[in-house]
């Protein structure tokens, strides 16, 4: 399958995928939210006191974290994969992944980047099963400002691999939201994005082996 224009037909599969990955990575049962439910309002309604992992106050006030990568299926283009976690959820993820009560900003970026990598790999396996040449980029992660524009997120100084994905072509993004540990995680797929500075792993047989003993 090539990069699709409309991913709504894949919504059920993507919801299952997001729930499975969140369950495994957070160790908690996620609830996929119905299409169109305002995620921000629901987060507020659940409240900080109900979260299973109450981090420090700083975590609750922390800016959201974003993960980005792209799946290439040339010549049809790139499918952008974006993950958004509220600051408290990114903190909880890093706490769990690093087994540390006080993860650093670098830890958060690494954790969110890895979650994005896992989600991207599973999206590729779900949508591109008959397309062997499809490739997964390396993930990038940024700590953005609440309500900031996409450009501001990408420009955040602390990023992993420095990848950029910018939307283009007018294709409709598909967003799946799930409630986990009292906060809403978002997975957004954006058809036909432009690659920008997306970082790709080397291909087998590429010049990467030159100079090896």
């Amino acid at each position, binding site marked *: 399958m090539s990069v699709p224009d409309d991913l709504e037909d894949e919504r059920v599969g993507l919801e299952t995928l997001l729930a499975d990955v969140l369950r*495994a*990575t957070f160790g908690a049962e996620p609830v996929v939210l119905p299409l169109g439910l305002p995620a921000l309002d629901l987060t507020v309604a659940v409240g900080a006191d109900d979260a299973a992992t109450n981090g420090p106050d700083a975590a609750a006030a922390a800016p959201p974290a974003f993960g980005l990568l792209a799946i290439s299926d040339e010549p049809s283009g790139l499918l952008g994969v974006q993950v958004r976690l509220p600051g408290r959820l990114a903190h909880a993820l890093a706490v769990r992944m690093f087994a540390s009560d006080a993860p650093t900003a670098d*830890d958060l970026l690494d*954790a969110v980047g890895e979650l994005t*990598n896992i989600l991207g*790999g599973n999206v*590729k396996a779900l949508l591109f099963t008959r397309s062997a040449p499809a490739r*997964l980029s*390396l993930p990038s992660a940024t700590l953005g400002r609440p309500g900031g524009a996409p450009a501001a997120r990408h420009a955040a100084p602390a990023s992993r691999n420095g990848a950029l994905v910018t939307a283009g072509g007018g294709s409709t993004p598909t967003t799946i939201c799930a409630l986990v540990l009292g906060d809403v995680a978002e997975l957004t797929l954006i058809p036909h994005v432009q690659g920008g500075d997306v970082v790709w*792993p080397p291909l087998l047989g590429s010049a990467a082996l030159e100079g090896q003993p």
Partner: protein
Amino acid sequence: MKIVVADDSRAMRMIVVRTLRQAGLGGHEILEAEDGREALDLVGRHVPDLILSDWNMPGLSGIQLLSTLRARGDGTPFCFVTSEGSEDMREQAAAAGALGLIAKPFTAEVFLDLLSPVMT
């Protein structure tokens, strides 16, 4: 035994080591590498008994690492731990000489099933 764990994510390297322990496969010397090139260097210097490697890494990917080792006649048991678990990837891994491919997210049971034959 010596085990090389290669992944560009420090979190994932920690999770792999933790999962080995949870699977009852802990207690070994772990050598961590941030990418395939560093893993190749570690293999040359330490002669490990097992390599657990991500597939997509900057510099030198996991499949390049495996192919380089096999081309040198190095048959160290090699298992991918990667976010991509499609049949295509599993076939590529097997054709290149990998013991198997563990798809993220994974469980301790999967580690035990695949790795216990070469670790016990």
